[in-house]
């Protein structure tokens, strides 16, 4: 997270420090540049509210499916406490928020994963929300946009978390059958069980620069083969070279890129909507 520069013991809210280059930035400028460092270009992690604000038409986002919340089906050690702490810290019910929004006036179905909530891990609730976002798009003919930020499946819900990989992927298949475009955006980090399910089978995949993207924890996959790993292993840039991404999009161009993609790939939905209306 951002470390506010201490000034006389108290953090000064007018300044922030870049987590990458450690330079001091004016908070106002930093926010105006969408929390991208003006010196090194580092894209700082966003919470879901910032992501929504930076992406969709002003005040157009309507959160849905707010009523569902997590249980502790396995009575997993310390899960209940950790989960409550995450709720208190973020003000979120779980790691994914879903809803609808307008993008340059066009309705889209949205899910945003927030890494600040238990590392964005996917359990029953976040899997359900992603599924509902995809189903809403499929059923109502709205393009689906999902911002990924996750360490993977949430081990504290055991096999139930693993099942979310299949469930969300099934919902992607539904979008394909219905001809509804689904765009995923990989933000830092997009890993493991999320990457190996709904994230990787989007029609179009965008990523923020330098985002960590990979299947196995870097430790695991480098262990045996560290000599083979390029310097930028498991970054968006590496994954792009591997053919898994469509574009690496700087944050300031993300909204306009999504606007174009939704207009071009969702054109048939627009036409059909017109016919009906």
């Amino acid at each position, binding site marked *: 997270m951002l470390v506010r520069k201490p000034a006389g013991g108290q953090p000064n809210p007018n300044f922030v420090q870049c987590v990458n280059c450690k330079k001091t930035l004016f908070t106002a400028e930093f926010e105006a540049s969408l929390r991208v460092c003006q010196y090194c270009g580092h894209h700082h992690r966003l919470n879901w509210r910032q992501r929504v604000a930076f992406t969709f038409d002003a005040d157009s986002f309507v959160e849905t499916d707010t*009523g*569902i*919340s*997590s*249980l502790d*089906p*396995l009575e*997993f*050690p*310390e899960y209940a406490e950790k989960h409550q702490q995450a709720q208190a810290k973020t003000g979120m019910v779980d790691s994914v928020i879903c809803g609808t929004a307008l993008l340059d006036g066009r309705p889209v179905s949205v899910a945003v994963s927030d890494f600040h909530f238990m590392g964005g891990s996917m*359990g*029953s*609730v976040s*899997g*359900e929300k992603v*599924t509902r976002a995809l189903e809403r798009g499929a059923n109502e003919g709205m393009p689906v946009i999902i911002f990924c930020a996750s360490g993977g*499946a949430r*081990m504290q*819900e*055991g*096999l*139930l*978390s*693993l*099942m*979310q*990989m*299949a*469930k969300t*992927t*099934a919902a*992607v*298949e*539904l979008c*394909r*059958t219905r001809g509804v475009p689904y765009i995923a955006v990989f933000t830092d980090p997009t890993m*493991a*069980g999320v*990457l*190996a*399910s*709904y*994230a*990787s*089978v989007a029609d179009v995949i965008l990523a923020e620069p330098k985002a960590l993207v*990979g*299947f*196995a924890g870097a430790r*695991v*996959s*480098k262990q*045996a*083969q560290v000599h*083979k*790993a390029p310097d930028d*292993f*498991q970054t968006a840039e590496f994954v792009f070279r*591997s*053919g*898994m991404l469509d574009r690496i999009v700087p944050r300031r161009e993300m909204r306009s890129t999504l606007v174009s993609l939704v207009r071009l790939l969702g054109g048939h939905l627009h036409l059909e909507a017109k016919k009906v209306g």
Partner: protein
Amino acid sequence: MAKSWKEWEKPILELEEGIDKLEQLIAVERDVEKKASLALRAQEYREKLHKFIDVRYSRLGPWEKVLVARAETRPYTLDIINAVFDEFVELDGDRRIGTDHAVVAGPASLEGRPVMVVGQQKGRNIQERGYRNFAMAKPEGYRKAIRMFEMAERFRMPVVTIVDTPAADPGVESESRGISEAIAASMLSMFSLTVPIVSVIIGEGGSGGAIGIAAANRVLMLEHSVYSVIPPEGCAAILWRDPAKGPQAAAALKLTAQSAHELGLVEEVIPEPFGGAHRDPGETADRIKEAMLRHLAEVAMSSPEAIKQARYDRFRILGRFSGQ
């Protein structure tokens, strides 16, 4: 709690060795009385062994299940395939970049009816393990599987997948060829099929590596197999920074077939023969075959579109949360 299969099997092996030795003595003993006495002792040993195995296998803990599921004496996928199917023609290639011997696949004949089989294959010795990559499939393996799924759809063949993997291959090359995409695309392909799919977990159902070929209408598990979102050692390393606490993690993860069944995540737990699948692979295969035929027949009662929808619905309801 035993940390390894070897350690855990020790008392059984010792009893078996004792019986072997007694048998040898009996064979060379000429004195009729002594022979009878030795035979009696052998019988006692056998009963002791039987009882020991019985007790042990009727109350296996989660970690012991992990040990059994990983045992190198356990029947592997090709053992099951050869015993269950009248015929199997292995096919290969992802039509992209390579072969993957961690995945075996091809059309087979099940009681005279064609099915498409995809499974993960472990190796029994060092050479085999290298060749099979410890049953850790690479992107090529999942893409080979997708080819088979697509053929099954075109040729109206039910699909059987056999799961036995610690995990998908986590290597640098697998990352650079999109192991995540391959797993996801394999599930996506399975969800697009209108033919029945039945998956059987025969040993280790290792996280993404397993679910990648287990997006089925019915998922069956052998009694002592395990199915987990993360290897218990990995879970322990993250939670307690101590991989040696695998046994505790195994308990926390609820990774046994019984737990999965209670959670409603698998349709049936197939009982293993006395003392585990490895003590009677033939009987194990028979039971798998019976369950496989029954579930395939049940799924096949629906129309193609309904079969696809049922698979969607099966997974759609998985998850536990409060509220709507």
